[in-house]
């Protein structure tokens, strides 16, 4: 039996630059979705820049799930999942079309923090002496597996249901999980992606590490001063290609393979030689049976912190040698959306191979000899990309690379 090809048949994006293809076009235009934080008081911080999705409520996307039982990350996830399901033609109105047995539709999602808003509420009650009003939310509403569960409840997906909290590489882990579930025929359709909500806890942590850029995010620039926390959700609908063709769906791109590795070096700092990052890239290439020379675009982890971008450059050069493969970071525009980031960037790679356009790294002014890459500065590029690679690195040394190929 030949190994089935896995294709993307739908995309859903909820970002600070809008939703769906609107977000994609804003990324190509090089717009910034960053703005001063409004959802909590930042007066005790020395920074206030964030990637909040202003005005997002998400209650309207919850048509089966009671919205009051869903945290912000879950609402972002449901909104992205509904979009992706509509985009793929899975839905008949609000419900999964009868073509699919619910048992054959699964969900795999990644996150960094799950629903930290529920911990924040618990802590506010703790300080106010009103814990009784929390009513066990940490048991019922907080655990991060509820994100994948809410999507499944909303779309009636009764197949495999997995939540992979691999921090800032989580979206890629979820896509890898879905890829294997389809290849092993544990499901016929998988919705896979990532979601994270803007949170006081996350913002405070990165601020304490001194990692947040004060004015803008400048990956690979010599003057880069840090990352910017953001929020987003992205969901990809994956199917086996023969199934998708049989129902007349137009695949957007192929997921060609993925690779995982662990630095086993430091919780918050990358390996000094980019060792784990390079191993994840090579594992993905080995798994997809694609030569490094065939990769024409790399969506970088590219957070904009001095260390990440330097070590990532080293890892990319280790794998691709002296060849100047275009490497860009959409985090320059929407910030670091945590567990959603690599899912958003996977959608970017899928659209890049589908349309032959690469989004830029914005705010680029001065080259850094430590980041000697073609970072597609400031302006999107037309380039017939056949193979794209999406890299993601996380706290805990969790690395994941996913490869995308054009449908020819």
């Amino acid at each position: 039996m030949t190994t089935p090809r896995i294709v993307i048949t739908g995309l859903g994006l909820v970002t600070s630059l809008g939703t769906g293809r609107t977000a994609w076009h804003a990324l190509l235009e090089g717009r910034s979705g960053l703005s001063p934080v409004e959802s909590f008081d930042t007066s005790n911080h020395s920074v206030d820049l964030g990637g909040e999705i202003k005005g997002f409520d998400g209650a309207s996307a919850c048509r089966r799930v009671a919205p009051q039982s869903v945290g912000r990350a879950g609402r972002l996830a449901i909104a992205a999942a509904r979009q992706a399901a509509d985009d793929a033609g899975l839905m008949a109105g609000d419900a999964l079309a009868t073509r699919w047995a619910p048992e054959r539709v699964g969900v795999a999602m990644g996150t960094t923090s799950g629903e930290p808003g529920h911990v924040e509420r618990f802590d506010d009650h703790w300080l106010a002496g009103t814990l009784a009003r929390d009513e066990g939310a940490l048991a019922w509403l907080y655990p991060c597996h509820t994100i994948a569960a809410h999507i499944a409840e909303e779309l009636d997906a009764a197949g495999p249901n997995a939540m992979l909290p691999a921090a800032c590489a989580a979206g890629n882990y979820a896509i890898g999980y879905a890829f294997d579930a389809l290849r092993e025929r544990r499901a016929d359709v998988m919705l896979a992606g990532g979601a994270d909500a803007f949170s006081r806890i996350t913002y405070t942590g990165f601020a304490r590490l001194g990692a947040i850029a004060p004015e803008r995010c400048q990956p690979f620039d010599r003057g880069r001063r840090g990352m910017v926390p953001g929020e987003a959700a992205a969901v990809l609908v994956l199917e086996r290609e023969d199934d998708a063709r049989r129902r007349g769906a137009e695949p957007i791109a192929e997921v060609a393979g993925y690779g995982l590795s662990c630095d086993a070096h430091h919780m918050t700092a990358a390996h000094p030689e980019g060792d784990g990052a390079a191993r994840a890239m090579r594992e993905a290439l080995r798994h997809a049976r694609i030569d490094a020379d065939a990769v024409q675009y790399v969506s970088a982890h590219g957070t904009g912190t001095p260390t990440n971008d330097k070590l990532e450059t080293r890892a990319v050069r280790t794998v691709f040698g002296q060849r100047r493969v275009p490497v860009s970071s959409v985090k320059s525009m929407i910030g670091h959306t945590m567990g959603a980031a690599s899912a958003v960037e996977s959608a970017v790679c899928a659209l890049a191979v589908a349309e032959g356009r690469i989004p830029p790294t914005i705010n680029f002014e001065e080259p850094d000899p430590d980041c000697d890459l073609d970072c597609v500065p400031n302006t999107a590029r037309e380039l017939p990309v056949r193979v794209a690679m999406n890299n993601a690195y996380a706290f805990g040394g969790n690395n994941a690379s996913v490869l995308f190929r054009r449908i020819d």
Partner: protein
Amino acid sequence: MSSASLRNPSRDGRRRVVITAVGSLSALGDDEAFGHGLAQGTSGLGPLTAFDLAVAAERGADVAGCRQPQAGEVDFDPRRDLGAANVRPIDRTGRLVAAAAGRALRARGWSADDLQALEIGLVLGTMYGSVHTISAFDRRGLEAGPKYVKPLDFANSVINAAAGQTAIWHGLCGPNSTVAGGLTAGLQALGLATELVRGGRAAALLAGGSDELCLESYVAFVQAGLVAGTSTGAHGDAPRALPFDARRDGFVPAEAAALFLLEDAEGAGARGAHVLGEIVGHACVFDPRRGRDPERAAATLRRAISDALADAALDASALDDGAIDVVSSGASGSRVVDSAEAHGLAKALGRHAAEIPILAVKAQVGEPLGAGGALQTAALLEVLRRGVVPAIHGFETADSGAPDLCRPTTSLELPPRETVRRGLVTSLGLDGHAAALVFETLDRAPRPRGDAP
């Protein structure tokens, strides 16, 4: 069992996945104490000492119904398990996982060089990671100001912190994945790890689950009405974990870490491993009604079981041939979940339901959340090895209307087998997940001396 039993390293063209070591810490103690306590019918549960619920009551928590709080605590000295090195950067969940991993790796006899050469992976199931670490970090920011939060706490605030810290501690460079799935996380992790070995992504992986006992989750469980003794306000006797029993009124919160070393059978044979058993099938499915409809919940568990049996190339008729010797169930004393689990097992096992003995280890170790499925698997391994199924601790009478299942009230000896012994592990979550795993010993396990016959 020896490597000689690994004559056929693949099954239906797939790599076979064997278990070659175990490391666990639970309320019954570490590995040997766990097996012994399980067989002797010891309870690892006792009065909660890890923290004082009165602190939460002062903060306005409604914990008055919990008069004699019980817990399944791990008696754990990190120095004993993790040596003299600095454990300060690691929170309790992480320390439990690192300690369990160390036990499994030592049992396998691997050196640091071996570990590096093999690029060992880790797949960890957890419900919370550490909600205590996250909450403490946030409260410090609120009380002292954001500049006074601790960077170490922030590093551990990610849900994959325990897996990352354990990889650093032991130098595990292979695929490293954390799986959240509520009470089913441990079985989900074993399932994902099985797929990673079958797919050739790792020659060896540690896989299992862990959660810690902490004030934040304990208070939440009490306020959610899930804890034994809370709803009835038990007078007199301390509340107990009573899986499947008509008197049950909740679970006893617990902590644990349990990890298995999984290897591809061929590699394990070449490396001279002592094989403890084989994971032959697994499945994880979901109930979009989120467990609110008891019949649907039971049907979802049945589906997980039949999918796992199918993954093990066993069909319904295999049950007629005695394919399953024992079931290691996730029943914990929960009113709702135990009932759905009983009905799901009855549906899945059909007319053999009354014959196949059921283990309910949570009666003795409490509800260790993400570690549950892994501890259930450890219990199954012990039972298959010893050939004796212990009584369900404390079990007397099932609900009226409960299905006819074999819930032992005295220990039962498994009939002799000339071929494999096989067990099923089942896990039903609080809000929709169901998972199952099929495990077998490769041939008839030699019984330890002294056990009859």
